[in-house]
Each structure stands twice: as C-alpha cells, then as structure tokens.
C-alpha cells in the first residue's frame, strides 16, 4: 500500500479509535465488577474481551496495510488477529442473543437463531479456512462473514426489541450496530481508509454499547448524606 501512514488524518483516526477502545475496555471492566447477575456480568466481560482483542487487531491490520508490502509476518499477524476477532465476535454475538432470549419474558427463539447458530459457526470456520488456503480471492469469504454477522446483528436487534429492560435493549442495539460497522468496513479493501473510518466509528459504537450496560447517576445533596 502506498498511503503514507503519517498523514495527520490517519494518525488522528488511529489514535482516536485506540483511545476510545482502551477507555471503553476500562468501563467494561468496571461494569463486570459492579454488575452481579450472570447475564450482565458475562456481557460486560464479553465486551471487555472484544475490546482488548480489537486493539492489537487494529494495530496488526494497520501494520499490514501501511508497512512495507509483501511481508509474510505482517500478513500472518493480521490474519491471525482477524480470525481470532471473528471467532470471539461470533461467540459474543451468539451469547448476547442467548441472553436476550433468556431476558424475553416468553423466551422466544427469534428467526430460529437457536437452531441455526451451530451451522453458522461451521460456515464461519469454513470461510476462515478458505481465506487462508483457497486460491479464490478472500473477498468472497469476507462476504460470507458479512452475511453471518449481518444476520446475527438483525437477530440481535429483533430479539433485543423483545427485552423490556432499557439498559439491555439499548446495549443490544449498539452491539448489533458494532457488528455491522466492522463487517462492512472489511468489505472495501482497495484502500485502508474505509477500515480506518470503520475502526473510528466502530470505537464510538463500542463505547455506547459498553456504557449502555450501566444506568449511572449522581448522588444529590438532597438525597445524600
């Protein structure tokens, strides 16, 4: 890639996204500490893992794009993080949908996700193997990823609408959007800018998803000590 990394806009976007991911991860850690129910704590921990994984993934992808071309190590490193990220993201998405179904008073299986998730995981694994070993252009496999995560996002948002708890419902909407933003940003690979922009937008969405888990307030003097 011939784009200069040290353009002010590039640097600003990278630093912004990294900063927001790091701060959000800290918030997710706090959420996992103060939320005690299994559903909420597992979501907070999931967000934390996803955030922690996103940071080196982002760095690896940027090194791949901006570093000297043709280096096998950079390719392998970014591919390894991409694979790890996709697997973790899938399990996180699946877990969040399951929590949403459990929080729905009538425990409905929206769009039969409970029956198709194993198949989708298999498809994801095949597409990951395809990206690494198939002579076919990897973009085709990226389309499969987008299909899986897009469907997951739709199921998540639809299930989330059946959850009556405001915090969890908002969290699910933002996580669904996060999955869509990152998936779409991977589609256009001729230039790293959509990816950079995707990371920046994704970091904001991720931050909103994290803080939506917590309904926080300020102690007022009138009610306080």
């Amino acid at each position, binding site marked *: 890639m011939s784009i200069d990394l040290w353009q002010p806009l590039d640097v600003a976007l990278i630093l912004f996204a990294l900063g927001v991911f790091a701060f959000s991860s*800290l918030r997710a850690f706090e959420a996992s500490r103060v939320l005690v129910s299994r559903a909420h704590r597992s979501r907070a921990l999931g967000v934390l893992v996803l955030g922690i994984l996103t940071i080196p993934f982002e760095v690896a992808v940027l090194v791949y794009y901006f570093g000297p071309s043709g280096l096998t190590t950079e390719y392998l490193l970014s591919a390894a993080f991409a694979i790890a990220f996709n697997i973790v993201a899938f399990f996180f998405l699946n877990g969040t949908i399951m929590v949403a179904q459990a929080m729905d008073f*009538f425990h409905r299986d929206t769009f039969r996700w409970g029956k198709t998730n194993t198949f989708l995981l298999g498809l994801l694994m095949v597409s990951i193997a395809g990206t690494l070993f198939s002579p076919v252009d990897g973009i085709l496999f990226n389309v499969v990823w987008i299909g899986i995560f897009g469907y997951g996002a739709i199921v998540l948002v639809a299930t989330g609408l059946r959850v009556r708890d*405001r915090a969890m419902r908002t969290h699910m909407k933002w996580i669904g959007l996060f999955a869509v933003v990152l998936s779409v940003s991977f589609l256009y690979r001729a230039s790293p800018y959509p990816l950079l922009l995707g990371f920046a937008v994704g970091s904001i969405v991720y931050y909103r998803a994290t803080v939506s888990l917590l*309904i*926080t307030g300020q102690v007022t003097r009138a009610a*306080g*000590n």
Partner: protein
Amino acid sequence: MERIGRHRFITRMALGGALVSSGIPALDSILTDGFPDRSSVLVLGQSGIGKEALGYWFTHSGLLQGDYCLYVTHRPVNDVMRDMKAFGVPTDKVPEWIASAGSPTKCDLEDFTSISFNLKQAVLKNADRRIRIVTDVVSPLLVLNPQPTMYQYWSRLLGELKQSDCVILATAEEGMHSESTIASLEQQFDGVIELSLQVEGISITPLLRVKKMLGLAPLHGFFRFSVSNKGMEVAPYVD
C-alpha cells in the same frame, strides 16, 4: 448516633410488631433490626445490580429460623438456584417455589390471577407460621398489563397477604418503567430500598439507600454495597 438508633428502635417497638431479619446483618443494623412484621418491601434498581441477592439472603434467613418461605419467580427454579450458589447463599434448605419451570406450581405471567390465587392458597395453608414471600414478578406483570389494573392488583394482594404474619419482599427493574410508574409502585409498599450506581471518575460504586421503611424516620444517606460469593456487604458511604 447511638441515641438516634435507640430512639428509632423504641419507636419501632412501639408499633407493636416484631422485626424480621433481612438476612444481611449490616442491613439489619441500618433498619434497626430488620423489616417490620406484616409489611411489604420493594427493592428497586437497574437489572444486574444484585437486587435478587437481598431476596436470596432474606429467604435463607427465614429458612434458618423455621419460617415458611415462598419464592415466586418468572424464571426457572434451576436458574435461581444457580444464582443463589453464585452469591454464596447455602442451598441445603430451599423455599417453596412458584416458578416458570421446575416447580409443581407454575408461574404463568399471562395469567396474573392464577399467581395471586396460588400465593393466597400457600399463605392460607401456612397461616400458623411466620411467612416470607420473595417475588420478581412485579416488573413483568406491570409491563404486560395495563398500569391501573396492576395498581389495583398489587394493592389488593399486598393488603390481603399482610392480614397474615407475612413479610413480602419484591424486586422491580428500574429500567423497565417510567418515573411515574415507579412512583406509584413505591406508594404501594411499606418500605423501599433503592440500589443504584454512582460514577466516581473512572470507577463506579454501587450504592444502597433506604428510601422509606414503615416505623422508621426517613433515612437520609447512601451506603456502599457489594455482592460476592462470600455474601453481601453494606458499609456507610462518605460522599
């Protein structure tokens, strides 16, 4: 401070009723020995904050004292039991259940009259004992039914249950209802305990407040609390 505590205690004893332990010693000392007998207490807070822990310890304390304990939940029994273990609540003695699954008597959210019928039947059968009822169905029923209907429903049900030697502890999700709904809900209960989260820089602190309690002068001030597998800790919070 001690004088105020003694004054509160004397005031509460003057009401004539016994006090029922919450199962959490630190909370008992805030409440001057526990919840009043024949009362209903509402625990309010966002989902996931640990409201259920109060219910678990309240039930456990009742089982140890030989009270009749009834747990009415929209969740399956297994889920609640798993939660109890995770919160460090011993499960060697268990309450009687009205649950969505895993109990002889089913909790059907679409049939709120059956819930009140089963509740009253259980209370009637155990009228010779002290009764503790814990429930998490307030919010689901309020979401699934018109507010005026639920207002009448809870008002009548709580009134009838309190005719017996009974303490009812109900949990409600703050994030599911409007402020006016919460206010009208608070009116129906004799006591309200609020759990909330306070942002302090980059850290978040869980806080507990007794908004009102039958027989107690208004309690101002917050308490820091934590829930873990070792139990529930409550300590004064200095702003």
